[in-house]
């Protein structure tokens, strides 16, 4: 038993880089919405001192494009597929879940309840999960924002509503200015902050949720090395996702997996999963 390694949604296109996706234990799609979306106007990315900002805005083909083109292409590559589901109302999410319910080529539905770059649905995360739960029997993972007072409370609510697992964490809303003009670097003004700066936040969130609920947790946020991944396992994650690091290092999946095994061994664990939760006491 080892720790599966996935990509964070929106951080890899398996169709343009299949060799990268094939190094993962499963591929997570970009968030899919009911209708096709052009996404946000450029500029969409900016580097900061300890991370990066993105404001892509859920560019994608919509559920019909996913069903007709993307999923068959992913299946042809032999990938295990998780679909990230988004929307602007509870019914948007639930409708997509229903369409995907009978697709054998989809393993897990991850509900993106926390995109910082588009308007949020008016319903609570738990209401959205409950709406999806009634329309699919597939495993539902709730992806939560770290920008909340009490993420453990959010975790308890979505699990009570029927979530089978948690994906922790999404990016946090941030801003960067052009030093010359003192105007926002990103076209939409703000974006999702990710990379090394997010890692301590992710550790705290995963730890809090692992203590609060007893469901599988996919940990992500600033992981760049095997030790980073092992630390997320130590606070309770059983699966680790790679995000920003994939942009700089497409070879990261195999490298992080190898480093993770070595870091676990160096600390006397027979495999990385044996370290799960040790930080939580």
């Amino acid at each position, binding site marked *: 038993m080892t720790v599966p390694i996935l990509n964070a949604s929106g951080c890899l296109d398996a169709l*343009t880089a299949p060799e990268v996706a094939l190094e993962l234990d499963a591929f997570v799609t*970009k968030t899919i919405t009911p209708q096709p979306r052009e996404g946000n106007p*450029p500029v969409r990315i900016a*580097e*900061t001192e*300890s*991370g990066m900002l993105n404001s892509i805005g859920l560019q994608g083909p919509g559920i019909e494009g996913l069903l007709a083109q993307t999923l068959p292409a992913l299946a042809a590559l032999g990938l295990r597929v998780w679909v990230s589901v988004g929307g602007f109302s509870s019914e948007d999410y639930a409708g997509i879940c229903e369409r995907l319910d009978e697709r054998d080529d989809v393993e897990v539905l991850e509900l993106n309840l926390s995109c910082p770059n588009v308007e949020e649905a008016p319903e609570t995360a738990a209401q959205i999960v409950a709406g999806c739960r009634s329309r699919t029997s597939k495993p539902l993972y709730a992806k939560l924002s770290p920008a909340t007072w009490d993420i453990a409370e959010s975790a308890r609510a979505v699990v009570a509503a029927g979530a089978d697992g948690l994906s922790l964490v999404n990016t946090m809303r941030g801003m960067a200015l052009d030093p010359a003009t003192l105007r926002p670097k990103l076209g939409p003004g703000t974006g999702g902050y990710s990379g090394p700066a997010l890692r301590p936040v992710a550790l705290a969130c995963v730890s809090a949720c692992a203590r609060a609920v007893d469901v599988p947790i996919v940990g992500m946020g600033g992981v760049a090395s095997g030790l980073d991944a092992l630390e997320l396992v130590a606070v309770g994650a059983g699966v680790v996702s790679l995000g920003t690091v*994939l942009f*700089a290092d497409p*070879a990261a999946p195999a490298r992080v997996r190898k480093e993770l095994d070595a870091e676990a061994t160096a600390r006397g664990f027979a495999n990385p999963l044996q370290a799960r939760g040790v930080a939580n006491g």
Partner: protein
Amino acid sequence: MTGAELRVTGTEAVGPYTLLRVEAGPIEPGIPGQFFMLRPPGHVLPRPMSLCLSRAGELCFLIDAIGPGTQALCGLTAGDHLHVLGPLGNGFDLTVPRPLLVGGGIGVAPFPYLAQALRDVPAILGFSTAAHAEAAALLPGARVVVEPALVTSLLPADPGDVLACGPEPMLEAVRSLAPRAQLAWEAPMACGYGACFGCVVELDGHLQRLCIAGPVLRAA
């Protein structure tokens, strides 16, 4: 798409720009106009650069130090290591009958390697200052203008097959005068291989990833 840690062999000042030289290792030089992602030390994201020169066992990148990332790249010294990924994207179509290179500022970067492939190709280069124009030495024989003169002032009425690289206003001006031109664009880019969707530009009415669709695009 190959990635490798390459050994820096040195840097040279070219006017206000820096020519960064690295051992090629397993990285192929690719087609002129393709690009590479160079990872500046201490930075989260790599930076896209076209190849300026391919010498025996060496790759050279011409870099304008416009921000912290490019400054870090220009600060590398012989013996340092640099992660390079590439070649990426679509380069110039070299099978054109009457090529003419048109470059502006740091847009001269891909031309020396392009001229290696095309041999004796005419070129027009424009720069903002005489100091920047020192980079024209990388392309012997090129006609050079310095602002306020613009490269378009030297474009012949029938420019042939223009291959252009430079700032957006220059590319737009070239596009209007030479509809058959191949234009090399740039955009902020996190990954260079289609993962981040950060580098989109409007093409055929839709936002498309420049790293996949380009960076070299047909004018019309």
